[in-house]
């Protein structure tokens, strides 16, 4: 398999994963959280490159640390989750560029962490993304009903005797895993477009939650493939091309919804 075919395969898998978990992010209103997480993987990746460890491992460790710090800040009075996300986000970038400056002989191109380089993904990256995709699909298949219930009606969910924290923890873990695996393809800055856009587009046009969960991964994969093809045809970097394709899907959905006035309005 040539590197271009491998990039296409990675685009399909990572796009599908981002779309599926993106549905969770969008429906549970965790976009800023996910964005802070994508940005915070940057120092983890740079650190792993410095230490010679696997990049996804470094990003994953950094993400877990970040979630912990954000939980701590969120608990302090007068701060709240937006502040936590924002602070973690800039701290991540500053730390990453500092670590990079301390190691000028770093063999890896650091900006590939920022905007991604899907043409150089390894078999391991694709396998990892495929593994996370399998887990995410099985979570949605087996626990989808509970997740939707807790997403749309927390009080009812609690009253029905369910506990909320396992669902919350599960969705946090899925979001983190997705952010980590999407980074090689679209980078720390642009990952949020691939995660949020397909699900946001699907939500604009779907009338049922199930439709969102099915459509978002398809749109995500399509964004990935079209982005990689555009990148080759127009000679532009692949990460931005993928992010722009995903955003175009969102804008198209927005336009279709505006003109499709007969559709019943979705609340949420």
């Amino acid at each position, binding site marked *: 398999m040539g590197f271009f075919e491998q990039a296409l395969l990675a685009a399909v898998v990572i796009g599908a994963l981002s779309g599926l978990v993106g549905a969770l992010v969008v429906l549970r209103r965790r976009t800023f959280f996910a964005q802070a997480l994508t940005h915070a993987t940057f120092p983890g990746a740079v650190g792993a490159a410095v230490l010679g460890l696997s990049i996804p491992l470094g990003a994953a460790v950094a993400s877990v640390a970040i979630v912990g710090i954000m939980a701590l800040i969120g608990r*302090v009075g007068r701060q709240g989750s*937006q502040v936590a996300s924002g602070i973690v986000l800039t701290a991540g970038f*500053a730390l990453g560029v500092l670590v990079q*400056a*301390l190691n000028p002989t770093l063999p890896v191109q650091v900006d590939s962490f920022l905007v991604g380089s899907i043409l150089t993904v390894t078999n391991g990256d694709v396998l990892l993304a495929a593994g996370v995709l399998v887990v995410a699909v099985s979570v949605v298949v087996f626990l989808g009903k509970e997740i939707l219930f807790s997403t749309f009606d927390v009080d009812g969910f609690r009253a029905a005797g369910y506990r909320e924290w396992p669902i919350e923890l599960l969705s946090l873990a899925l979001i983190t895993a997705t952010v980590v695996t999407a980074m090689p393809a679209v980078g720390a*800055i642009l990952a949020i477009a691939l995660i949020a856009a397909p699900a946001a587009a699907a939500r604009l046009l779907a009338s049922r939650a199930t439709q969102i969960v099915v459509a978002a991964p398809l749109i995500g994969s399509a964004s990935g493939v079209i982005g990689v093809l555009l990148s080759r045809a127009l000679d532009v970097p692949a990460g931005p091309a993928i*992010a722009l394709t*995903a955003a175009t899907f*969102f*804008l198209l959905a927005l336009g279709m919804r505006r003109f499709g006035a007969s559709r019943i309005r979705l609340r949420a």
Partner: protein
Amino acid sequence: MDLLGFLFDGFSLPFMARAAAVLAALSLVAGVVGVLVNLRGLEFISDGLTHAVFPGIAVGFVWGGREGLFLGAMVAALVAAAALTLIARSAVPTDAAIAVVFTAMFSIGIIVVSRETNYAGQLQQLLFGRLLTISPAEVVQTIVICGVALLAVTLTAKEQVFRAFDNTGFDAAGYRPLLLDLLLNGAIALVVVTASSAVGTLLVLGLLIVPGAVARLVTQRLWLLFPVAAVFSGVAAWLGLAFGFAASVDLGIDLPSGATVVLTLVSGYFVALLARLAVDRVRAGRPRSEVAS
């Protein structure tokens, strides 16, 4: 090197003095605007703005070099501020929409820069700033723009605070929220533009939100928030600059100044956070122990 030398020596060099002047102006205005960002909960929108300004910076930089950079950023920022104000008022808005649209604009900026030779180096400069190579003309530009932003916010400070705490009452009192939102988002955009060339697109958000968050931790008195935030960010910027300078002179490590400044801000935030947690714990613990005894 002794402590005083650490704090003052570097700033006799012209490029360090210029960096300090720019950061002092930015700290003042970012402190004031940052408190309003915090009170209104506009962190996410500010993040969107920093991303949205990037294509303007990139296009301006490619066409006109450093002068073009400023112009391009201004145009992009004002357009983005107006667009954001309108999006936030329409029915469709979700945080997802903001994230998607502004990340898309960021992508356009990266594609524009990627057309340049020495793509990686220039991208890095735009993203992480070039605090130590600011020209005297840019210092003047920064101070003027910061002054405009500061004026816009201080003249409407009372109304902004009213809107932050009691939006319904604000509407009922007959004020016009659209104009006020435009002013505040415009001021944020101006800060983003000036700070982008100093500390870089990715680190601007630190200047905008950390001082406000620290002020909220330190005091509960409303009008103390603004001076606390401004003074905190000024001191942190100074320490960060001095630290970066000392590292490069004494240890021979070339640290990016924007990053040291932002990391000093964030470290200050965590010190304040832990202090606040400790104080709260002591205060919460005291009545219980009295009851026990």
